[in-house]
């Protein structure tokens, strides 16, 4: 065993740290880690794209996580996913809305199976959710965003006058 193999084991924790701080793993971070650990950027890219936890692009401001575990699936998670994606205008495969406000993530399992189906929007965890309730949770945030931006605009105009 050489020191460098031990160093190599620091790769995933380092990437996790970057992601916690930045919300994603930018290219610059990969370059820096590559130099520090003496692991090629190609290897790091391979590791990064293997694990579903890592993101190469920034996420939306609001995170919608929908559990797609087995218990959630048999209790209607696919309908929740359809409802949320429809509400946000996301089509197949897209994760983040064009305006960068929302990212929808299907999580393998939160382990809260007794409360299936489960959704987490930002910090709010809700169990036993229906598609209708999920739509309403999303709409509430959309409304708040619209209100905020209207207030911002009015404020801007006020200073211009």
């Amino acid at each position, binding site marked *: *065993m050489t020191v460098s*193999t*031990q160093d*190599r*084991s*620091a*790769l*995933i*924790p380092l*990437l*996790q740290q970057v992601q916690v701080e930045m919300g994603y793993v930018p290219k610059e971070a990969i370059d820096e880690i590559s130099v520090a650990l003496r*692991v090629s950027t190609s290897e790091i890219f*391979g*590791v990064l794209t*293997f*694990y*579903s*936890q*890592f993101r190469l692009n920034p996420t939306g401001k609001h995170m919608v996580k929908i559990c*797609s*575990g*087995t*218990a*959630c*699936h*048999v*209790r*209607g998670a696919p*309908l929740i996913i*359809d*409802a949320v994606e*429809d*509400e946000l205008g996301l089509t197949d495969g897209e994760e983040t809305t064009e305006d960068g406000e929302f990212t929808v993530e299907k*999580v*393998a*399992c*939160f*382990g*809260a*199976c*007794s*409360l*299936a189906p*489960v959704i987490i929007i930002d910090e709010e*965890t*809700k*169990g036993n959710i*229906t*598609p*209708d309730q999920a*739509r309403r949770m999303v709409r509430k945030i959309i409304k708040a965003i619209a209100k905020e931006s209207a207030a911002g605009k009015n404020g801007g105009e006020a200073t211009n006058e």
Partner: protein
Amino acid sequence: MSNYTAIRKWADEEVSAQRADKARIAIGLGTCGIAAGGNAILEAAERTLANNTEINADVVSVGCIGICYKEPLLDIEIPGQPRLSYGPVTPGETKKILENVFLHNIYEHKKSLAVIGDDAFAEIPSWNEIPFFAPQERTVLRNCGFIDPEKIEDYIANDGYAGLSRALLDMTPEAVVQETLDAGLRGRGGAGFPAGRKWTIAADNIRALKESKSDLPSYGYVICNADEGDPGAFMNRSVLEGDPHSVIEGMIIAGYAIGADFGYIYCRAEYPLAIDRLKLALEQAREKNLLGENILGTDFSFDIKLKEGAGAFVCGEETSLIASIEGNRGMPMPRPPYPAQSGLWGIPTIINNVETLNNIPVVLSQGAKSWAEKGTEKSKGTKTFALTGKVQNTGLIEVELGMSLRKVIYDIGGGIPDGKEFKAAQTGGPSGGCLPKEMLDLTIDYEALAEAGSIMGSGGLVIMDESTCMVDVARYFLTFTQSESCGKCVPCRLGTKRMLEILTRITARHGKIEDLDALEELAPSIRDSSLCGLGQSAPNPVLTTLKYFREEYEAHILEGRCPAGQCKALITYEIDPDDCTGCMVCLRACPTEAITGARREIHVIDPELCTRCDTCRQVCKFDAVLVA
């Protein structure tokens, strides 16, 4: 006085001092508890205490006791009285119950669940009498929901680290391995390989390595596989959150037994609470000299590092897990060599599941014979299950191996909700199979489940009713295995893809009867020629559903019908004119404006506009929306 006696004395004193004259209000704050609103209950309890200073009590958070369908839970323990459990409680009810109990000595409440003790109290039944708990046997969950997982003294006062003490002070490593062999403890991760046999191989290899080389930083590793990836299972999460020291103790004992000097806990990143509690527990154990240099004053040194997984189901596979700890893509390597021969960085390594390790301290403190009294001849002990899906009482349960599925589902689980009929029980997650109602009397043990085409797995037990489509379930699991396949070997990467495509076609009305032949040809090949357990077991959901529910496949293909009413391409939504009251609720809720009609007029669904989102059926108070 040995070091352990001193530590035990300290813990007993701490615990009795904490509880001597103070009541304890315990809120279940596992992930489930939090998801069910446990934090609001905690706040309500704290507020109630602040407003009623005469109540002499501490509010503590505990792990999950397992009765998830009653979350959030509120437990009250007054010195000299048994512990009372209430749930599901709201913040308002929390205030009321606390005031009733502490200020007016009124214990019964409509949310009373049970007395967590052997006898009834104030008209509240003992938990031994309520159907959810009565048939259970708690070995693994011995401490979950009872001790404060953030206090090492609670664990020690409940016989914690007694097994380690016995192993280190009274036994040779060989004797510890022998004890594990004698117990007949089989790996709880799913495959059921005897833990003692794995340890024997590792111990031999570590001994040989020590004889041949003298300059290595490490000669053996113990890895705790806490990467619970089965979607629909949370047994390990509950143990890590509710009783982290039990796993740490198991690892130290394992390390001593095989001659390892370092351990890793590989825990899912999706379990932040478990990670926090493990970190705290490791610190506490180090502080008490139960971990680190010269444990309990002996020559044995062992330390543990926590590694967070990064979201890959395949890392539950031993060689993938090792690759992941080493900082690589979690792609499995061919075995042999087995990790017990050449594992992490080429050093002999054992990898045991959370629940396996949690059992070890009990095996050591009680002795193999006593531990092995439970269970069947070949499947000893107890097993936890995450009982979920279409079952009345969902939760984390623990039963003696050999219990029938029927007893678990109907006695503990309380049967199927909403008057529906049981269709299948799914064990083993994506690697397991779906067992039909003809198999309800199957006993839960490794051999019986394997013979039925499923596996024990780590303990996911998802119940399905008549409204669950078995083709869709097979498609669901294949979607999962396909997206979790590491992509290395051909049968898994492409075989699961082609099976998934076929299943998707069938659920989308495009299936052909020859597709079933293709599935039956692909499945055994994928099982027999894939590189690792993920691929080898990926066909199980398809094979079992084809075997037990073939008529559902045929209905999809030949009749264009989904008997469970789940597959969107095969169903239509209609409003029953006899039951519709024209209340406009569905019409307003419909996201695509597919429903027309006026107040007090019968509504109609336009099948062209309908996206089959099920909203109308869910909001209708008169069950007037029909799926056909």
